[in-house]
Each structure stands twice: as C-alpha cells, then as structure tokens.
C-alpha cells in the first residue's frame, strides 16, 4: 500500500479517530488503526470493540492500493510534528514507512487481516437528519445523563424515532432533558416506537465531528448497534442494555404557573446565588411573586445571598428549591434568548421549556 496524504487533512482525521483507540488493552492490535486504500478513496478506522469509527480522508492520493494496521499514537505524533505539506505512507506487510521532505520514519504495525471488522453503514439508513441539528439535540441532552455507573441504562441517551420526529432523552434520575428533532424523512417503519439507548461516550464523539451547514447524518440500528454516518465519518457503537425509564410519566402536563425568563439574566442570577452555597446547603431558593423572581441562598457559617429579577408573572406566589448546578447546566445549552419556567408545587419538579422542541425537568430539593 502506498498513499500520499495532505498532512493537515490527515492530522484532523487522526485527531478524531485516535480518541477511540484504547490506551491500554489486552489486544495490542487495537492500539493500531487500520488504513484502507482503494482506487480513489482512503479510509482510516479504529475500534475498541465498543465504539468503531471510520474516517474518509480527503485529499489523499492512492499510488498503490492495499490495507495496513499502523500504531495509532506513533502515527498521530509523527503527523502532528511534521512540517511537510504532503506525507507519503508506504506499508509492506507490517512495516510502515512515512516519508516527508527531509524525514523518513519506519514503524512496525500488525497484519491487517487480524484487525477486527469495523462495521460500516450497509443498506438503507433508517433515520436521516441534518448533522448540525442532531448535534444540537445531543448537546441539549448529553449533560443530563448519569455519570455514576450504578444504573447503566441512564448512562446513555434514549433515541425514540417516530414518523418525521426523533426524540432524544437524557436523565440521571434527578433531572431529565428531552429534545424533539425534525427528521428529513420519515423514519423507517421497522424502528417506529422502538427505544435505543446510545452510550454517552458515543454521543460525545458524534458531537466532536466537524459539521458543515449542509452535512447530513444517517443512522441505522442493527444487531444491538447504532451505525451513524455523517459526511466523511461513520461511527458504530454498541447500544446500552436495559430499560429506560418511562419518561412521559415524569413530565408534568398540568402546570398553570408559568413565567417567561431571559436566559442570560437567569443564568447570571443562578450563578451568583450559587456563590454562597456549600456541601451542607441544599440549594438555591426561587421565590416567584407578582413582579419579581428572587434567588436566595444560605450556607451555615458562610453567609447568604439574594438576587432579584423583574418578571411578568400572573400565577400564584411560589417558593421552590433547586440545585443551582442543574439550572446552570441547562441554561448554558439553551440557545434562545428566553425560556419558560413552569412550576407546580414546591414538592413537584420544575419544568423548563425552550422553543417548541426542548423540555427539561428538574427535581426540587426540600429547603426546610
């Protein structure tokens, strides 16, 4: 195999692909990445058995077709440090030569036949959407997934396709984020109303893929795997086993107390109130009155804080406590200038709505 790469393009690809490479493994071959050079296309793929990625490298010239497995970290480092515009990579058996203007590297890899298969997108996709939109939806849900791993179903994002809509949900049991995304076409009937849990790690990887305005993303669920193809990149990932909680039950539908709030101002107010909290103080109190929303916090032996905001509110006066971090997280991802806060009673969850697509539920803390 012999290929001439544009160094910058290769470096960008390697930046993404190497995030999948496991740092330590019992199977050393997984620390290599596979290069496949076809007539006019060069693919680089990597896998850790759970997530696989294949990247179509732009601006590569194939001089001799073939495939190779090259140690990923070494190759990435060489490409990163090189100054050439073009790097020639030539592989025979398991020996890889990388040539620049003034440089000549030889590194030893593995035989490509031994490299596990990295799944690609075969057959027709089941879901199609704009990549930018999907990434936005993912960002709106990813932060709410569970970080601790006692309940694995919560460590991923739920995908629920239905008609021309795809619902993504993330929750850790204390808050829940739901984003409804418009698809470019109706989802495949076969997966109508099915539920898939995609690991947070995979979603984060998808979020990192560089996206152009018009890039499309297509998705297929097959054999317990999600295969996500977007532009130059195909990501495959094992799904999470388990049942996702029935999120519809958790989203209250009967709230009458609603108030429209400015996103930036609220974020700033919560952040300032959070300055006077510590491990023992349970949260920030929101006191909603006719004309004002007052954020207060108090920490024993530390002090207290009060931040007032003018609002236009017509419902009953109400006091409720929240973990400030849970508010900060959501206010950071909301892109609209304003959002709606809905409240029931102090012991029922708070609800935040942004645009037509996004709902966020957060459990209150009792302040007494």
């Amino acid at each position: 195999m012999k290929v001439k790469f544009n160094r910058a393009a290769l470096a960008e690809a390697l930046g993404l692909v190497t995030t999948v490479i496991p740092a330590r493994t019992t199977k050393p071959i997984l620390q290599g990445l596979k290069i496949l050079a076809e007539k006019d296309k060069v693919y680089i793929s990597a896998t850790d058995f759970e997530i696989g990625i294949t990247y179509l490298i732009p601006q590569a010239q194939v001089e001799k077709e073939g495939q190779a497995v090259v140690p990923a970290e070494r190759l990435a480092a060489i490409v990163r440090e090189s100054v050439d515009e073009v790097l020639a990579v030539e592989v025979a058996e398991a020996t890889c030569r990388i040539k620049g203007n003034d440089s000549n590297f030889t590194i030893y890899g593995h035989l490509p036949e031994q490299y596990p298969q990295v799944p690609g997108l075969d057959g027709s996709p089941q879901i199609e959407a704009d990549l930018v939109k999907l990434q936005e939806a993912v960002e709106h849900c990813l932060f709410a997934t569970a970080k601790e791993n006692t309940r694995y179903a919560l460590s991923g994002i739920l995908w629920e396709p239905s008609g021309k809509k795809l619902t993504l949900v993330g929750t850790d049991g204390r808050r829940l984020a739901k984003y409804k995304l418009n698809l470019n076409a109706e989802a495949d009937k076969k997966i109508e109303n099915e539920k898939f849990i995609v690991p947070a790690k995979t979603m984060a990887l998808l979020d990192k893929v560089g996206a152009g305005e018009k890039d499309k993303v297509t998705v297929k669920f097959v054999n317990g795997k999600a295969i996500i193809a977007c532009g130059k990149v195909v990501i495959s990932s094992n799904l999470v086993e388990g049942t996702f909680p029935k999120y519809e039950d958790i989203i209250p539908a009967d709230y009458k107390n609603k108030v429209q709030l400015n996103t930036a101002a609220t974020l700033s107010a919560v952040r300032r109130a959070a300055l006077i909290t510590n491990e023992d103080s349970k949260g920030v109190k929101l006191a909603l009155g006719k004309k004002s929303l007052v954020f207060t916090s108090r920490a024993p032996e530390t002090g207290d804080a009060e931040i007032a905001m003018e609002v236009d509110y017509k419902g009953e006066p109400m006091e409720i406590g929240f973990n400030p971090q849970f508010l900060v997280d959501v206010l950071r991802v909301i892109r609209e200038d304003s959002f709606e806060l809905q409240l029931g009673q102090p012991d029922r969850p708070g609800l935040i709505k942004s645009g037509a697509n996004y709902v966020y539920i957060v459990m209150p803390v009792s302040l007494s």
Partner: protein
Amino acid sequence: MNLSEIFCQAKAVDTLTRAFGAGKSAHAYIFEGIEGVGKYTTAQAFAKLLLCQSPVKNDSCGKCPSCTAFEAESHPDFHHVYKELNKISKLPEHRKKQVFELPIYVIKEFLIEKVQLKPSFSASKVFVVSETEELNAESQNALLKVLEEPPNKSFIILLCTKLDNLLPTTRSRCQIVHFGPLSENIIIEKLSAKGIDKAESKFWARLFGGSLGQAEFYSNPQPSFYKIKKDFLNRISKLQLGEVVDFAQWINSTASEFTTAWLKLNPDANKSDLGRQAKRAFVSILISAFTDAMKMSFTGAPAAQEKMTNFDQPGAIKQLAERFAPEACAERIERFFESIRYIDAAVNEKLVFEHLLLNCTESDIVKERSH
C-alpha cells in the same frame, strides 16, 4: 477448539451440551475442579458455542463470522477476566498495584461495566472469570447482582479450584459444573506425545491427582524434576538423623535451582510463586511416598505397587513401610500437610524442611517437638 474436541471432560461437556440443546443454558456457571483439568479450555469452547451464529448439533459451526473471530482471538463479545487485567485499568493507581487476590476494581471495570453494553456480534456476551477462588468477599458481593440477573443475553462462567472459597450467596446463584481429574492414560498419552518417558508421565499423573496442567509443568525435561525425585526418595527411605541438616540444605538449594530454571522459561511468572511451587513439590512427593507406604501395609506389596504413585521405586516405599506402621505414616502425612501451609506462609524454609525430614527418621525428638 470446539466442545466436541474436549477430550477428557465428557461429563461436564455433556451437561453443558444437554442444557444448550434444551435451550436451558444457565446465565451463570461455576466450573469447578483442580488446576489443569481443562476448565478454561472448556469454557472457551462453550463460549464459542454460545456465541456461534449457526450452531450445528449443539456445537459451534466453526465457519460463521463469530467462530472465525473467536478463533482469531478477537471476538468482541468474549471477555476473559483475570486478576492481571489491573495492568490495563483506566486508573493509574490500580495499574501500579501488585495483585494477590482478584480485586474488585477488575471485576467492576472488566465485567460489571462491560456487561451493560449490548453484544456487538453475536446474540450474547460471554464472560469467563479465572481464578475465582481468589475473589475476596468484596468482589463476590459486587458480582451478586449480575450473577443473579445478568443484563439480557449475557453468560458468566466462573472458573474455580476451591469451591469453598466462594460464598454461599455466590454459589447459590450459579450452576456448578464439576471437572473431575483426568484419567491417567490421557495424561500419559499427552505427555508421551511431548516425548516424556511413560514411567515419568505416570508418576506425575498420579502425583497431581489427574491434573494435566501440573503434570506438564513438572515434566519439563530441562531440568528434570523427575530425576531429582528419584534421588530424593531413595535418600528419604533410609534417612538417618545425622543427615537431616545437610539434606534439608540440599532440598533448598535444589528448589532454588529449579526456580531459576523455571523463571527463565516463563519470565512473566512471579518468582516467589515459582519458589513455593518447587518446595511444595518436594513435600507432595514426600506425602505420596508415605501414602504409598501406608497403603502397602494393607494391600500387600505386589497389589500396592499397581496403584502406587511411586510405583517406580517400590524398594524405597517398602523400606518406608517397614520403618513406619500405617498409623505412623498417617500421622506424618498430616504433619507434612501442615508444612505446606508453612511454605505458603513463607515461614523460614530451612527450618520447614529440617522439621519435615526429622519426621522421616524414627527419632522421638520430632514427636515431642512438634507438639
């Protein structure tokens, strides 16, 4: 390797295939049996079957992508969990540790976390956990949930040499498949294929109670432990009080010679483990000799020789039997077992062997000293 190719565990294999055939494979198994009788090999073959995409007559097909990947040792749904995995743990503090038991973080990171993802390839995932007799209470407790209700389609096989080390709560969640010792003939056949002399093969097969693994280990010809054992027993059979100290020294230095030699063959092994192994071998031989002598008193020489471990040194055994009555043999065997514990506990080894050898003389000193 396929299940049908497992040559020596017909009963265990039969249990597994029958359950598979009836669609009743349990999600958690314990494969129990002494070291070196094919537990891991069988677990692998069984895993291959469980993962196979088109099983043929209750065995893996060997052709489907799953079988191909399995044979290439790169099946993403087959997970082998063992204590040294700590070296590739996510957390640096775990990587640095010297592991003695099977630690909880290995179980968590390489089993409990992995079991939550759907299989990539096959309909199920299989986890084989080695040396579960080394699981401490913490790790076993951590395993209970997955053992009882493994996320769909997962199978967990625990390999264990000492069933008693597993908590009742662990055992009660698993089906236990017993792996008996291998027949002498099979071991002889396997060792002969490697060019080991038949008499020697027979001796090791008997000494280790049918463990092919151990027999293979000790029958390594370079250097030959067998030759040493013959000298050893000849001396033991007529050991006098005055020789004890020198002889103990000889055993210790011989043991360390073997340790060094074995370490060369197997550089990854733990040196002190190998050292203990060599010393334990001497005690095991001693035990076998006294057992032979004990039995000889009941069955008579020619009959006993048939079944003796040290059938190759009937003279030495006869001498022992003449010097020690069966009850005296039995008493000494019990003491030798105690010595093994001392070796494992790294008690001053020179003293252990001196004490041991004093037991092989008719001296009364020993009796009074030992209790």
